């Protein structure tokens, strides 16, 4: 190798080094930008809280178990019969407690919930002979499902209800506190008619609609409305509107 060849080789190495440094620098700048631009949304899960306990129990809070009394509840002051929509929460393990509003120090029930990203859960508080219960219900839709699923829950005191789709009875004689799952429903807007016999032997009927085009799971809540009337409500499961 000659000196000239040696010099040329040196220059080439310097150029290569400089080019490499520039490239590294560029990558160092661009990649974060690209990463920033293409960043996936923060993983979140969805929880909703339904208070189906008797009105006499008063409004309820859903709190992190062990949180201080002054810490705000996850969902607070939920009155009887309130069927909240989903709220967004970060994935993780949640230790949750049900308590009466204003009585955080007296939890009524505890549950654990492993909230995954894009998963949906309902926390359902309802009465049992043993006292209030808090149940974790997974609402996440199965993307492979080819039919709809309707969950019917009766929390209308002293009411036994039947549910029809057109002339077809899909739920019969559902008593207070009972729930039933109706699978294999068509993925379309499904008109529902709910019949019951109110006290004084007055028949009552309400119509509702579960839209299985929007979601593959829905819940029919048989509850009194704010006036105490027989007005079942439909909530879509696994869908945050």
């Amino acid at each position: 190798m000659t000196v000239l060849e040696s010099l040329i080789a040196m220059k080439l190495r310097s150029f290569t080094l400089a080019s490499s440094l520039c490239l590294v620098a560029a990558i160092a700048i661009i990649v974060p930008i690209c990463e920033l631009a293409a960043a996936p949304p923060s993983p979140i899960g969805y929880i909703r809280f339904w208070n189906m306990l008797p009105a006499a129990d008063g409004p309820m809070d859903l709190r992190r178990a062990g949180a201080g009394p002054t810490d705000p509840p996850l969902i607070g002051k939920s009155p009887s019969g309130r069927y909240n929509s989903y709220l967004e929460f970060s994935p993780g393990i949640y230790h949750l407690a049900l308590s009466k509003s204003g009585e955080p120090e007296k939890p009524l029930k505890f549950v654990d919930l492993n909230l995954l990203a894009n998963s949906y859960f309902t926390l359902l508080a309802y009465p049992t002979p043993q006292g209030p219960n808090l149940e974790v219900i997974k609402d996440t839709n199965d993307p492979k499902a080819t039919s709809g699923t309707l969950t019917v829950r009766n929390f209308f005191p002293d009411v036994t209800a039947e549910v029809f789709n057109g002339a077809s009875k899909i739920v019969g004689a559902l008593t207070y506190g009972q729930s039933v799952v109706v699978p294999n429903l068509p993925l379309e807007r499904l008109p529902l008619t709910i019949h019951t016999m109110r006290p004084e032997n007055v028949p009552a009927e309400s119509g509702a609609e579960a839209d299985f085009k929007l979601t593959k799971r829905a819940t029919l809540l048989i509850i009194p409305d704010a006036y105490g009337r027989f007005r079942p409500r439909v909530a879509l499961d696994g869908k945050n509107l």
Partner: protein
Amino acid sequence: MRRLQLSHCGGFALVITLITVALLTIIAVAFLASSSLDQTTARAFANKAKAQLAARTAVNTAIARLLDNVSNYSDSATSWEKVNPRSGGVLYEGTVLYYRDESPDATAGGIPAPLHALPLISGATAVSIPPPPQSAASRASTLAAALPGPLDNTNSFDLNHPRYLKDTQGAIGAPAGAASRPEFRAPWISQTDADGKVTSRYAYWMEDESFKANVNLMGVTPRGSDTVGDDPSEIPMQGLLKTLGIPNFDAVATVIFNSRSNFPGNRFFEYRAVDQAAPSPIADNAKFESTIFSGGLNLSRTGSKRINLNSTVSTSTDPGAIRLQLDQIINTIKYQSPNFGQRFYRPGSDKNSLDVPASDQAIYLNKTAANIRDYIDTDSQPTVIDNDGNFTVRIGSRPTNCFTASGGGTSGPNEVIAIGKERIPYIQEYALRVREISFGPRTGPVANYTISIDHYVEIWNVTNNDIAVSDLGPNPFLLIADQPGWDAGGLDDIPEGPPRDLHLALSNAVNSATGSPLVIFPAGSCIVLTTDPDVLPALAPDKSKVYYIQIQPENLRTYSGKTQKKSGSNLRLNMRDRTTNSSDYETEIALANDLGMLESAWGAGAIGTAISVNIDNGNERLDQTKYHFRGASLRGNSGSSVDATTGDPRSNAEQLQFDLNGASAGTDKTRYYASGLGDNDIPGSSSLGAPNSNYVDPSKWPDYSSSNEAAADAPAVIANAKLTSIGQLGDIFDPVRVEGDSSNIRLSRSGGRTFRIGQPNFFNPSNNPSGLWDGDSNSASREWTAWRLADMFTTQTSPAFLPPGELEGLVNINGAARDDGVALKAALFGYVFQDAQLAGAPLSDVAVQKLVDEVKARVMNDGTTYPDFAYTSGPIAERGALSEMPVFNAGTNLSGADMATTYDRGREELFRRLVGLITTRGNIFTVYAAGQSLVPPPGGSAAPVVTATSQTKVTFRMDPKWNGAVPSDPFDPTSNDRFRKPDRYEIKILYVGE
């Protein structure tokens, strides 16, 4: 000397003897002559007496026969018939009594009883009228069978024979303009003695005086546009005189009228007194067309005294008293027309099937009764009837919610079965305006929000009268209840339910443009009630029609708080959907007062897409003009039914069944129809502040509504006063309904049709597709035509000097063929339409003639000229059936306006102002009778020798009489005692003469 003396004495004796003999002879001859004369005179008197007795027999027989038929067959009518010849010439012309074996109260099985006809002349026998259709020839043949054969001088007597040479009138008279005096013949009826020898004979011919105009009762004021037509004094005498061709008929009428006033009681005692003041004698020439005695029975076809609605309905707030009134109406209809409730809905093409179950018929009758009551009573409080099995009347408490389904659900049987149609403004459209006053931040754990929620409610006074707020009872208010809640993720949610219900007093409403208080809901016009102090022009462009009612306290309008509800990372405040996703149909809008509901538009607040308050686009949406509005307007039936249509404002929440969400109900869903009134559609599909006629198809809707805002265009009439004509029943809303596109009749609204009383009920696919009658006089559907109500009910009472159940001066329309309807024409003389759509249009002579021609054709069952009459039989059986004249709903003959596109009240006006003057059977008849004394024919001749003839004319009245108390109103509806037929008819002789 002695010889001379003797001779002298003998001559004297002879003379004396001769004189004596002569005198005796004279005496004997005179005696014999006198004896013979006496014998002849006595025989003549005897013959005359025999003839008179025969004539009296004729009169008695005629009266007895008529009495017998009228007593036994209450469903009867008289008409004038001209029976064509069996062998040349007119066989018979005169009055015929038509009657059915049983009256309509016996039609529960559907089919009316057989029809018979009896010419009211001697020798006639009743014949059965075969079911229609009949050709003119077969009809004539049927009637001809009632008579013994062709009538001529050998077997009959012309009761209208000339009284003197060249007499053109005869005893009975001749129609004006007739070429010759008509013969009115009746067969002779022979009478025999104990040996079977014919000793006398009689003939009678009888006519109904109600065929004629009554010169004793007529007035002289042309009908004009103000007369209601409830008294014969409204029939102008000029109408009679003009038709008779009397010159200066106006002046002559006045002279006769004034002359009449000089008579005691303002009445002529006998007909010829008409000539007392007339410039030239007219009585003899006018006697065929006019009379001084005429009248009709104010009885229904069942024979019972018509129920006077003005006596049964009264204003009340006592539920028991109201129930009693309703039951009187209902039981009347049920008794008089047992299947009237079959009108409610007709599920198939068979117009005569008895498909409607008894329970639904009961609901229909309650709805009908409530509408009738609310039309008449003077308040504006709708009659509301509970669906509690007992049909309890609901009144006396301030409503907290709209009407709902029984048991409180969103579907199922309506909690009330009837809401009477009152003179109130009706809710038409609703829009919700939500302002985003502040919201932020967009992201993060919590956002602060402030929103205001305002309501726009369009109210339409569909009636042709202004409605004062003060008319709407104690403390009227707009109720907005059960608003949807708002989801703030469990932080400051805005709840649904009673705390947010609004009771907005109408007394607090002030005009948004001027600040003046709301006093009047103008006739036929819309206004908008809003809680928005700053009216959005895009929603309600004309501020002068908007009235603001402040929501108090303000925190029921403006809401502030925190929300943690998110979609993705963006915070929001979401309207909470309830029974269907992303929408809400449960907001309740009503007008009410302290006594109860005025107008309930349950589901009026249909919100087709849920609202989300947010700032996703980075900006607060402060007072946006294209956001946060949802609305709805009312739809009625829709679908393929011929008369189905949508959007009639006069239907309210009176379906048998509610289906608020109604996924399968199509446009029959109970909620107001959301016509795309959404984010970007204001005011595209909204007509807030203007009548909502954009869904009404006049070709399908016989009584459509107009988008014009004026009393003249208002589609409803509610009198709130006593009826002046039974024809006003045609103003009353008919709860009848048809299937909509849900194919569920129980979801259907009745729409805005009124009872077709004064226009045809006959089904006609081109001009009356929703007609409920198949046009057959013998079909079941004929007994539930709407105009049957005009036979059951009345507004008229008998004058004090007349027995109950009678009315003077009525014109029998079945006599139109007798003289080309002179009396009917007189009743319409100078008539001017008063209805707003036809106002000022005179009823022309051509129009009157058209009506008369149609009446004549109907009486003659002329299906050739008028196909609508092809399946009729017998004459017009009841006054309401005049409604079937085609001129009332087709063509321009009547008023110059196209009756096919005229409101019901315009089409029905002529009937309404005429029905109180007409009848189909009179109760005053005249018998023209002849009797002859006969001796056996000499030498075996065939014809007996007439030894004397007697003629008489007797006018008599049939007075219905009830044993015990005369049925009267109001009455106890738990018993049918009110519907008792007269126990007998008594005869009152009004006139006897030669």
